[in-house]
């Protein structure tokens, strides 16, 4: 099918790339907190969905949902700080499994609270951006997808510059390299951790707002986003931004093709299966040198 109808392949590739840029943005947040605080946040996807609901509510109250891209990160930053103060600061220097389980708890909590607050319907915020037709009207690209990819790139660039130039960015990078040394040199690591988690949540907020414009959101859809970002991070490695972008797009394209070839009902399943396969592949590659994934 893929070769018989080349236009479907082009469509899937373009869709996948635009989608993948969004995934990369979420994955960047995950890489950030993983690198700095050494925790894996299972609630990442639920933060994304919460950001999406912020944009959706603006849409319900008659404000154009695109403004959610600015409002959602601001709100989500404080949500992130609150989660950090309540839970995460107690698991930062503990075993990674503790952080996985604790954030799993947060994830269940968020899922259910969102279910109560917003209902269990699949919703989307309509942006009225229209569509772009390419290749003789054979390929249809919603403008909202192009808009969301553009905004994601914009935010990623801003963040990279911020991490390079600002004082807090320097402190975050120093803490990631060596938390103890940073502490000795007068960096308030507690504050840095809180800010990192806040920035991560804000990134999730942006991504969520964009997802609510381009796709649909639902309270229980969080976990796949966590798994996707985890997968992107382990493929690209921590602190490798071009790698994150590339593997994000790769994942997007893979998903679109899986959707076309296997059918939509196997889409999420294939994502999770891909994670397992990637981990097994890396495990065998490393075991030749008698090493293992660290």
């Amino acid at each position, binding site marked *: 099918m893929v070769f018989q109808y080349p236009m479907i392949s082009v469509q899937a590739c373009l869709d996948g790339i635009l989608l993948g840029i969004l995934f990369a943005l979420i994955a960047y947040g995950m890489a950030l907190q993983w690198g700095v605080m050494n925790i894996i946040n299972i609630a990442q996807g639920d933060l994304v969905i919460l950001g999406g609901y912020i944009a959706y509510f603006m849409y319900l109250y008659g404000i154009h949902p695109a403004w959610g891209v600015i409002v959602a990160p601001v709100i989500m930053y404080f949500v992130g700080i609150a989660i950090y103060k309540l839970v995460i600061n107690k698991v930062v220097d503990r075993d990674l499994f503790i952080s996985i*389980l604790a954030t799993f708890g947060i994830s269940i909590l968020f899922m259910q609270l969102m279910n109560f607050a917003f209902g269990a319907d699949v919703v989307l915020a309509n942006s009225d951006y229209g569509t772009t037709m390419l290749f003789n009207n054979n390929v249809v690209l919603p403008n909202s997808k192009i808009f969301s990819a553009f905004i994601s790139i914009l935010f990623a660039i801003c963040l990279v510059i911020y991490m390079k130039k600002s004082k807090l960015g320097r402190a975050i990078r120093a803490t990631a390299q060596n938390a103890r040394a940073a502490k000795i040199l007068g960096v308030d690591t507690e504050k840095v951790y809180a800010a990192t988690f806040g920035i991560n949540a804000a990134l999730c907020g942006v991504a969520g707002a964009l997802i609510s414009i381009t796709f649909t959101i639902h309270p229980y859809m969080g976990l796949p986003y966590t798994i996707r970002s985890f997968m992107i991070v382990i493929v690209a490695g921590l602190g490798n931004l071009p790698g994150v972008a590339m593997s994000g797009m790769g994942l997007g394209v893979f998903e679109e093709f899986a959707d076309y070839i296997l059918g939509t*009902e*196997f889409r999420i399943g*294939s994502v*999770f299966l891909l994670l397992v396969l990637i981990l097994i592949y890396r495990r065998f590659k490393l075991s030749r040198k008698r090493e293992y994934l660290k």
Partner: protein
Amino acid sequence: MKNNSILYIGILIFGIAAPFVFPAFKVQLSILCVLIVLATTWNIQGGEMGYNSFGNILFYGLGMYLCASVQVGMFFPLAEWTESGGEKTFVHTPAQFFQGMAVGLLVAALVPTIVAGLIGYSILGLRGHYFAICTLGLGVAAGEISGGIEIIGAGQGFTTPPFPDVGSLDARGEFFYFLSFFTLVLTFIAVRSIYSTRFKLILNAIRDNEDKAEAMGIETMKYKIIGWMISAFFCGLAGGIMGGLVGYIDSTDVAFDGREMGVFMVLMAILGGKGTLWGPIIGATVFHIFKEGFWTFFLGWQYVALGVLIVVIVIYFPEGIMGWLREKYPERFGEVVDEKDRKAQVELK
């Protein structure tokens, strides 16, 4: 030792008498037995081996589907059964039902064991959180994929064969209760005898330092796979029983329910105390009582309570009940304590 045997006999008598003393709680008690089995077997590789898996739900769900499919497929065409959904065109006679159940449980226990053996070599090479996330992915993937397969009911679910009419109304509850209680006793005996062998020491060595264990000449991979297979065996069995007990199998809500059962088994083992024999049993009992309380009094808010409970247990109570008791009364656990040394350690903390 004498105390222990009295305790065992007491529990056994209580277990056998329970459905007649508390007839209203038969189903709850059966579920409790299944939960204890799950927590105890999770503990084999989660607590003793140090491989924290979210993926044992895979074996549980597999066992559930297999048991029901075998039970139906032995006598009737499976596809037509699932297609007809709730309206049953086929009825099992009692003999067929029990035969099917017996064979089904056997398959439900053996196939997951084989699956664990097959995937064990690749998956158990991962360590720590990679293993945890990989198994999480495995569990969810299994749920999503089984939700797309037509012959086992796809999205609309699979109704397991209803209990045949054998004359007595209480028969169903008693049958499932004794089935799960028997499984529990079997699991307990198996796990207890495993824990008194060298095998347990090897598992503990793997947990404490895998590289050193390997350097000491232990074939860690072999033992890890065996540990996981034992876990899978009892998970599959528990799944098969639970499928019959619930009477309805849905891919993501009942069978491969990583959000509920998959987390429950981890939580129960941690609540009771990882790496102890009695910990998961106590943990599962306490957890089940709490859970039923939540489900009854906070209807609708149960998952919120559950989320909070997970966070609180993990952050403030990672040692579990047994760990806490051990800290408090070390003499009871046969540890000789030097008071001075202990005080010094407490001060250091």
